[in-house]
């Protein structure tokens, strides 16, 4: 037997959660769907295939204050970032939940990023299985699936008259609305079929073809627009700067991309990674070779967003296939 919640009771539950927590959920905004704070559950979008941006921004915001600098009686005082609210994020797809699990590896690796850890500790994830897929989706190739409960606290799967409710963690179990759940013998629908790419041996293939002309050729059409990194649930390069607004000083972290010209330029102007080929190779090498070596799996969830947004049609699935078919020398 499985536990099911009806569509109207889901809204009752989310309404209750919005009273005890900050509720963050997909909201349609013009032509796009984004995770936003919701005070009225009627604003929640349920008709999306996937959100335009992942929920990454609620753990690793596009810009966030690390600390403020204040002066009291001539003495400098550093004031840590504000405490976060207890939050529930509803509607996270399994690929994006994997993205959060991937971000955990660098950010929680000791010495842990204190602000990221606070975001994580104070947030409960309610996942939503996928009933349909985009043509760009390939999550099953990257170790997750449209109905994968692994990286959320509760997983909901849509069925004819409601949602199957699956508590995955203790944190998830604690927020289940027992009075709204009904026992049911409904079986989950079969997940949508997706495009696939074989990643077997990709690390070795990346190593073998590190010096291939392939990267220069591929990068020839890259515009350095950084959209791929901006939409990626697993990209985490960041910049740190000070902002001084009429004496109100803050140290701010913001999203950055290894595709930015000057990413590796040092004082005096020397750039050890000059040129488009090495820049684009860095993106794929980090995802498919370095991150796996450091943390055990690729820094890609198969969400397909980078494929969808790239203005020059650079497709990570094609890159993975191409590199495996290139005949580079055996690696180090």
């Amino acid at each position: 037997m499985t536990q099911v919640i009806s569509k109207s009771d889901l809204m009752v539950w989310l309404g209750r959660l919005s009273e005890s927590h900050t509720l963050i959920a997909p909201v349609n905004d013009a032509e796009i769907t984004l995770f936003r704070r919701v005070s009225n559950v009627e604003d929640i979008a349920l008709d999306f295939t996937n959100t335009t941006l992942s929920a990454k921004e609620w753990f690793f915001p596009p810009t966030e204050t690390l600390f403020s600098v204040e002066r009291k009686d001539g003495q400098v005082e550093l004031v840590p970032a504000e405490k976060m609210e207890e939050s529930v994020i509803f509607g996270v797809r399994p690929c994006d939940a994997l993205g959060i699990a991937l971000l955990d590896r660098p950010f929680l690796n000791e010495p842990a990023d204190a602000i990221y850890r606070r975001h994580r500790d104070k947030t409960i994830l309610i996942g939503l299985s996928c009933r349909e897929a985009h043509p760009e989706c390939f999550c099953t190739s990257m170790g997750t699936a449209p109905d994968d409960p692994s990286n959320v606290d509760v997983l909901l799967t849509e069925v004819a008259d409601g949602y199957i409710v699956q508590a995955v963690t203790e944190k998830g179990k604690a927020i289940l609305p027992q009075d709204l759940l009904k026992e049911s013998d409904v079986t989950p629908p079969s997940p949508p079929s997706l495009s696939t790419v074989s990643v077997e041996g990709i690390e070795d293939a990346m190593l073998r073809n590190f010096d291939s002309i392939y990267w220069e050729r591929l990068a020839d059409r890259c515009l350095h627009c950084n959209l791929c990194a901006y939409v990626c649930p697993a990209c985490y390069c960041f910049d740190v700067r000070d902002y001084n607004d009429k004496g109100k000083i803050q140290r701010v972290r913001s999203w950055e991309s290894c595709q930015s010209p000057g990413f590796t330029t040092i004082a005096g102007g020397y750039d050890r990674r000059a040129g488009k080929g090495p820049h684009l190779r860095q993106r794929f090498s980090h995802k498919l070779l370095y991150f796996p070596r450091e943390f055990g799996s690729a820094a890609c969830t198969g969400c397909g967003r980078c494929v969808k947004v790239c203005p020059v049609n650079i497709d990570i699935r094609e890159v993975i296939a191409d590199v495996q078919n290139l005949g580079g020398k055996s690696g180090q």
Partner: protein
Amino acid sequence: MGNNDPFIPYLATVQSVVDLTPDVKLFTVELNDVAVRESFTYRPGQFAFISVFGMGEVPFGITSVAHRNEGLQFAVRRVGTVTNALHELGEGATVGVRGPFGNSFPLEDYEGKNIFIIGGGIGMAPLRPVINTILDRRDSYGELLIINGARTPQDLVFAPEFDIWSQSPRTTLELTVDRGDENWTGRVALVPDVVRDVKPLPENTVAITCGPPIMIRFTLEALKELGFADRQIITTLESNMKCGLGKCARCNVGDKYICKDGPVFDFEQISQLFEMP
């Protein structure tokens, strides 16, 4: 650092500022918190970030040696936004310090060996604590040969210490400049050519170099001509970096991070990196 948040620096006060060259100043800072100050220790080759609040934060090799208790020192060349702001600071100014980060020169492993230091310009900053550690434990090491180059005589960074270095036992200091002036009677030659001229023997010797990328490239060639193996040539790498924690991904070179796995590498390790650092 403070508050268990590795992004929050320790507050520190500038104790003194000394002009070393027309564009390099030596800053001595003291950490404000007594308990932090007493537990803060570091090894030659490690680096720390200095904050000028409102302008930003940049990493510098620490140029003092911890055991001398002379304060935490940084030699800063005026080249960008933060270093320009630092140069405007005087005694008593408040800065931030995050660190120490990175590995260090394994000086214990070099005991009994001859040490050959090759530094160019501000590249002498991370080499000074190596020299001073060896001078303070002079009997533990063999010959010490220092080649120090700069653009002009005024740009030789640690000139006030040259007499102490050159008068130490079994120590030779060779200075060279790209362009001399009316008072300069020393060498006018590029650092790699001085290496070729001095011809140190590679046997039982470790070469440690730091300087502009172009100098390092040609110094490496000169050392190899003299028979030095990659493993005997050590350097400390410079990189753009934002965190020092292996997270911002700015300093990664292949699957290594300069901030965590370095900044000190030997050229055998560097030749195994996928990318040229």
